[in-house]
């Protein structure tokens, strides 16, 4: 059996029927990584010994009937800003290439307790912001759909590794779209949960007030299973919220009949969008309508406004994090990260407060709109995967982002595949967002869509 593209849900079912074992799966995936990651660079470090030890333990427990939950015996990998005790956590940066944490991040502790099998640490844009960079100690990850293109960022290795069939799921982080962007251009599901839903303790910060951790996987059902293990209150993360975690898998059921979905048309129909995107979103809307949803247009502030607000806040918080290194060893940053963090030194306190006040206003407009509709739908990326070109201009500020609005609002937002571009054959993606802590509703809408379509079942060939 080729295990490369089995989902987390399918692996769990096969384990329960004893038709497949965690050791067998782990060995197969390690072999696949060894054979193919040389051209994709999705892993910075493969933790083979740890993986086989965890797989052996999971196998023994599962054979004895002691199941720990939906991630038991499931291989996964971590973006390399997520700390792992005794294993280097580099941030894909020269600045931390020898850093070995003493403790696991809280979400790693939860995955270990849930019986997951860690296969390794994944490429990222430098400290989850600076990229794609070609001047770092490791090359940037490539997109398995076409290795001449990039897998988005900043959870670049997570997108590439899951799409390539190296792991069925991975943990990324998302400040302005760093889970949803890679999920979108790699043809995956990727969830930015509500701010405060998943602990960031032990995760290198990007922007304290907008950092989120969340999963990338091949299906919405897998996202639900992954979230069941990593979501929950952490008293030692100041941003964590003590809100009960529902049974996400149970919440997948119910369909979309009668739900009111607000289509934010202006965002994906503007300049800079791929020519095939509007038709793909229109087709996705048709599927949701056929499934019983009521879809109506919604207007929110422009992507330009959301991007300005988010990036101003981020720039200041980033500078606070990196100030010491910028003053003492600026040459050790990659060019893109350095030039994205330095502006924070020149942005005044009054600018930062103006952006924070604006954030409140922008978040409130989303809340008001969510009194009329149950969820928002829009695209998850305006373009397809970028070419792997070191000379591409930096578009962080110049090109408005379609993921940042829900970063500003702190809402749960999910990317799922909704088609492919005609000329390039690269993934296009739908984004669904809802009220704070309504991850279950977001997943339910996406699951209904995926039950009616098969975009998420398509995989790249690595031959």
């Amino acid at each position, binding site marked *: 059996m080729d295990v490369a593209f089995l989902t987390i849900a399918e692996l769990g079912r096969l384990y329960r029927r004893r038709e497949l074992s965690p050791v067998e799966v782990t060995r197969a995936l390690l072999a696949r990584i060894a054979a193919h990651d040389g051209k994709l660079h999705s892993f910075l470090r493969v933790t083979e010994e740890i993986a086989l030890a965890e797989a052996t333990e999971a196998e023994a427990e599962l054979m004895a009937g002691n199941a720990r939950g939906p991630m038991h015996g499931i291989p996964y990998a971590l973006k390399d800003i997520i700390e792992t005790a005794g294993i280097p956590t580099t941030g894909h940066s020269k600045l931390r290439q020898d850093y070995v944490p003493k403790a696991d991040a809280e979400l790693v502790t939860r995955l270990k307790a849930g019986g997951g099998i860690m296969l390794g640490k994944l490429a990222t844009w430098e400290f989850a912001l600076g990229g794609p960079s070609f001047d770092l100690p490791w090359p940037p990850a490539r997109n398995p759909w076409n290795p001449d293109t990039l897998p988005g960022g900043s959870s670049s290795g997570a997108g590439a590794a899951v799409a390539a069939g190296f792991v069925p799921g991975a943990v990324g982080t998302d400040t302005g779209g760093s889970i949803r962007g890679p999920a979108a251009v790699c043809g995956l599901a990727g969830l930015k949960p509500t701010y405060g839903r998943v602990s960031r303790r032990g995760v290198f910060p990007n922007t304290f007030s907008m950092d989120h951790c969340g999963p990338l996987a091949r299906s919405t059902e897998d996202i639900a299973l992954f979230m069941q293990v990593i979501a929950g209150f952490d008293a030692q993360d100041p941003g964590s919220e003590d809100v009960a975690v529902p049974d996400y898998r149970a919440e997948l059921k119910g369909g979309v009949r009668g739900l009111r979905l607000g289509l934010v048309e202006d965002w994906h129909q503007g300049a800079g969008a791929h020519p095939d995107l509007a038709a793909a979103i229109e087709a996705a809307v048709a599927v949701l309508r056929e499934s019983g949803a009521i879809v109506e247009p919604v207007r929110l502030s422009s992507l330009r406004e959301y991007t300005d607000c988010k990036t101003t806040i981020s720039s200041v918080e980033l500078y606070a994090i990196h100030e010491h290194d910028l003053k003492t060893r600026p040459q050790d940053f990659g060019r893109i990260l*350095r030039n994205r963090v330095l502006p924070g030194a020149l942005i005044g306190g009054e600018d930062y407060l103006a952006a924070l006040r604006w954030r409140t206003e922008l978040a409130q407009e989303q809340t008001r709109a969510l009194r009329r509709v149950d969820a928002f739908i829009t695209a998850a990326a305006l373009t397809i995967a970028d070419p792997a070109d070191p000379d591409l201009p930096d578009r962080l500020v110049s090109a408005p982002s379609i993921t940042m609005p829900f970063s500003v609002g702190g809402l749960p937002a999910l990317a799922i595949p909704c088609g492919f571009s005609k000329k390039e054959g690269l993934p296009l993606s739908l984004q669904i967002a809802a009220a704070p802590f309504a991850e279950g509703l977001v997943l339910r809408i996406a699951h209904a869509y995926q039950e009616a379509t098969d975009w998420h079942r398509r995989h790249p060939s690595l031959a």
Partner: protein
Amino acid sequence: MTSDKRTDLTHLPPSTPEEIRRMVRRAGLDLSEELMCQFIAAWPNYEAMIRRLPRGRPYADEPAHSFRPARLSKSGPYR
């Protein structure tokens, strides 16, 4: 949609390269000429961005002035 009755600073002229150099030095940063030139090329997009920020909002529109002591007693120290 957010309010149209806002003010911003988009009427201000862009900083000159020399002004950018002065601001960088004032911030305590010591960049080589190569890194300074890279930053001088990067800064205008950011300067335009912060000048587009709407200003003059009511002081009650925060989180900027909020502080939640009860939240601190609920959480331990951030490692």
